[in-house]
């Protein structure tokens, strides 16, 4: 358990004015913008900045944070404000500080007499490409802030088992009704939105429902053509490589991309031919290459001009 210093996160003093805090936040949020920044930890940093500013940028929350922080320090208690989604569950850099609205509502009793629907929460859910082809059930864990019997803030781990429907694509949102922030005064909970992301895999690239798969082939397979067996996300398929295929050639397998869902049709699978040379590390291999060099009259740089 560790106290999170939001002032340090924004690089300002505890006495900083609202304007100084705003300026510091804007400067840093630009620096670490995940779409632009070259910093390796840009995502995590952005999340941290948003969390810190979500509290320090709001005078009421800032005052409560200052008070809570020092009170808990004196009492020697750990204080753990951030919601800190579990490991299977990487939050997408924002809205996480909704937790604070909730925490302070409990602590200060601000909303106690109101009936208010809980806020919606957002997070990202990383899945394998395989899951989009076949559907899957995944267990995610999230930490939920709660007050214990002594009125201290504790986090409770909550696991959810989520069905991932066949045919999902990156960027799609999965809505789990009633799994967001709890409501107050007996009102219903908000919804939880999960943004689907694919875990990067070296062999596959995905664009919408189309999938690109790199397939290594031997020089003779590329030159002479023939049938090869390829493992694809939907199982092994036998594909005919046309004779005289060069590296980079695309073979399209219609309908073998990510399966259709609703009215959206299935995507296509593109096999990208990559010619791989056997190394000349035996006498036999060297002699075959030497024979080709003598007999093929092949100049790959013929088209380059002088």
């Amino acid at each position, binding site marked *: 358990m560790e106290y999170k210093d939001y002032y340090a996160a924004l690089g300002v003093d505890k006495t900083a004015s609202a304007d100084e805090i705003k300026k510091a*936040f*804007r400067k840093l*949020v630009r620096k670490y913008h995940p*779409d*632009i920044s070259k910093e390796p930890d840009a995502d995590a940093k952005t999340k941290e900045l948003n969390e810190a*500013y979500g509290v320090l940028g709001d005078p009421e929350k800032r005052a409560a944070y200052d008070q809570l922080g020092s009170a808990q320090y004196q009492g020697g208690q750990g204080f753990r404000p951030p919601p800190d989604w579990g490991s299977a569950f990487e939050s997408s850099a*924002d*809205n996480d500080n*909704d937790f604070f609205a909730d925490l302070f509502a409990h602590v200060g009793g601000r909303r106690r007499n109101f009936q208010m*629907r809980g*806020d*919606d929460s*957002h997070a990202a859910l990383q899945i394998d490409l395989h899951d989009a082809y076949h559907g899957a*059930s995944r*267990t995610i864990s999230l930490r939920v802030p709660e007050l214990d019997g002594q009125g201290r803030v504790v986090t409770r781990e909550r*696991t*959810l*088992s*989520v*069905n*991932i*429907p066949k045919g*999902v694509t990156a*960027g*799609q*949102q*999965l*809505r*789990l*009704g009633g*799994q967001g922030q709890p409501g107050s005064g007996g009102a219903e909970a*908000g*919804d939880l*939105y*999960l*943004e689907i992301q694919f875990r990067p895999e070296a062999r596959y*690239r995905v*664009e919408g429902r189309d999938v*690109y798969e790199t397939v290594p082939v031997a020089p003779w397979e590329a030159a002479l053509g023939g049938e090869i067996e390829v493992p694809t996300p939907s199982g092994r398929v036998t594909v005919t490589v046309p004779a005289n295929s060069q590296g980079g050639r695309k073979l399209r397998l219609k309908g073998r991309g990510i399966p259709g*869902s*609703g009215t*959206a049709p299935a995507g296509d699978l593109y096999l990208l031919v990559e010619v791989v040379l056997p190394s000349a590390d035996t006498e036999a291999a060297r002699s075959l290459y030497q024979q080709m060099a003598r007999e093929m009259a092949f100049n790959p740089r013929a088209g380059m001009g002088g």
Partner: protein
Amino acid sequence: MEQAIQGVLLDEAALTLEELARACAVEPGWVVHRVRTGILLNEAGGQPEAWRFTSVDLVRARELARIEQDFDASEELAALVVDLTEEVRRLKSRLRLLGH
């Protein structure tokens, strides 16, 4: 282990105006204004009750709201930033496809 939760995939069941506003923590009027000015839901006409928003609209709306709040940006400026961000992401994904 609890029973598996069946999520609803947006795009099969797109969001209404109220649902989108709630998911972005903004007022419905905020959304209506940005649809009317062409920032959200390209070329939507008709009554707001008939509008439906997909996953892409949700991501876009949340980013617009975030830029406006973080930088006190005008809605046009926020829209420009989000348009450029979307273009950068599109180009980066093309680059990845080309193996860079």
